[in-house]
């Protein structure tokens, strides 16, 4: 089997991740729920994981890294915890439903108005739209770091300059970039960064979180047990406890912590270079094929930096049919359909049939990229 669906989840994890979860399952108590050695073992591990996330993503304070179940939960925390009734939010057509649905819910329930920065036919954000969409009551910009459909990376420096010029909050979804695109939230002046642990960070599913810039107030999205201030009716105000009601997924976080060690030792640049080389090699073989349409701006001279994603369609075939053929006949795992990014597909004219997404990871090889390209060649012929 050739696994090319790393943008959905990195299926193969480093061995150290598997070992860390296994050890945690038999040695760790409940983090922040006591001072016995088993609880402290979990607490220390979680504390260390916060520091590693903070280092990787450029969050100044490790205690402002709060863990969550995934990026979707983190984005719900960020959006519901900062946007108030009757305010306006600017977002983009590139977004995943993990951003769109929390915003649509605010639109329906809190009279929040939404403005969408358009994606052009190549899926690139129309940056001039940010100024055009600005309203007197605009509170925040919610923006992905890279499209999960095309892989194109958004110019966060430009978005950040806009938000800070106008005193807006900037919430960034780094689901597609954490671990494979260098990022420093402090240097870029990002306010809230939402990440998932199971994609480019190579951790277990069920891990993720939010990095909060010092001074940014986020209302708790959920409240409950924290192991501290038990007689208070309110959620404790200090980060990260403020955003972490209930027992953490410490077993998963143990795996994530080991994965972060792996990334730190390997190097984000090294990972990015390897993955990009595979994507480029695959793209170079399929783009010239008769009947293959490539999405995004990858073939343009002034293309944006991008993650290791290549999305295509073949002839007039349904993307699901091609993905199924790749799976059943060639043993190649890809992702077809809308990728939970409806506005992006509408912008690119692929709302009806979606696209086939090939996404490369650290454990993929040149041979696998070539085999995938050969399969596409056969299907297109």
């Amino acid at each position: 089997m050739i696994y090319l669906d790393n943008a959905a989840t990195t299926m193969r994890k480093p061995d150290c991740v598997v070992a860390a979860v296994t050890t945690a399952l038999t040695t760790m108590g409940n983090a922040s729920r006591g001072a016995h050695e088993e609880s402290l073992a979990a607490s220390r591990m979680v504390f260390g994981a916060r520091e590693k996330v903070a280092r990787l993503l450029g969050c100044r304070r490790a205690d402002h890294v709060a863990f969550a179940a995934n990026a979707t939960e983190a984005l719900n925390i960020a959006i519901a915890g900062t946007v108030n009734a009757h305010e306006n939010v600017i977002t983009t057509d590139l977004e995943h439903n993990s951003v769109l649905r929390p915003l649509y819910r605010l639109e329906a329930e809190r009279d929040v108005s939404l403005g969408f920065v358009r994606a052009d036919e190549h899926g690139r954000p129309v940056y001039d739209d940010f100024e055009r969409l600005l309203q007197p009551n605009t509170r925040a910009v919610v923006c992905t770091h890279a499209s999960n459909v095309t892989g194109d990376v958004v110019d966060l420096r430009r978005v950040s300059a806009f938000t800070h010029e106008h005193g807006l909050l900037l919430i960034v979804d780094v689901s597609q970039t954490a671990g494979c695109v260098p990022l420093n939230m402090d240097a870029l002046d990002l306010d809230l960064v939402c990440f998932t642990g199971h994609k480019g960070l190579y951790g277990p599913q069920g891990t993720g979180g939010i990095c909060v810039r010092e001074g940014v107030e986020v209302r708790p999205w959920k409240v409950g047990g924290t192991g501290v201030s038990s007689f208070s009716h309110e959620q404790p105000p200090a980060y990260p406890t403020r955003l972490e009601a209930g027992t953490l997924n410490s077993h998963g976080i143990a795996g994530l912590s080991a994965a972060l060690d792996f990334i730190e030792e390997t190097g984000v640049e090294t990972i990015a270079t390897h993955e990009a080389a595979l994507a480029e090699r695959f793209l170079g073989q399929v783009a010239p094929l008769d009947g293959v349409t490539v999405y995004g701006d990858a073939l343009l001279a002034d293309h944006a930096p991008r993650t290791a994603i290549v999305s295509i369609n073949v002839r007039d075939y349904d993307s699901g049919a091609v993905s199924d053929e790749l799976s059943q006949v060639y043993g190649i795992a890809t992702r077809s359909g809308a990728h939970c990014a409806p506005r992006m597909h509408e912008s690119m004219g692929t709302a009806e049939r979606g696209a086939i997404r090939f996404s490369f990871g650290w454990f993929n090889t040149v041979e696998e990229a070539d085999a995938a390209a050969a399969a596409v060649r056969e299907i297109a012929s």
Partner: protein
Amino acid sequence: MALEKRSALVIAFDSTTDALAAERELGVRGVAGRIIPLPREVSAGCGLSWKAAPDARERVTAVLDEAGIAWAGAYVLTI
């Protein structure tokens, strides 16, 4: 068997994260002590506190302050 009570320094923290940061910093500096559950005599703070010898206050707080680790209070208690 009755619990034996002795005088001890107790440092309280606002968050578990601060307590764990303190534990590591004090460990690195070789300052004796350990994490214990917050004694009931201390009303403010998270569930974890640092217990050390009763005369260690100056040394412990100096290390924490130098490392920029926030602490909520220092108490000498018979616990």
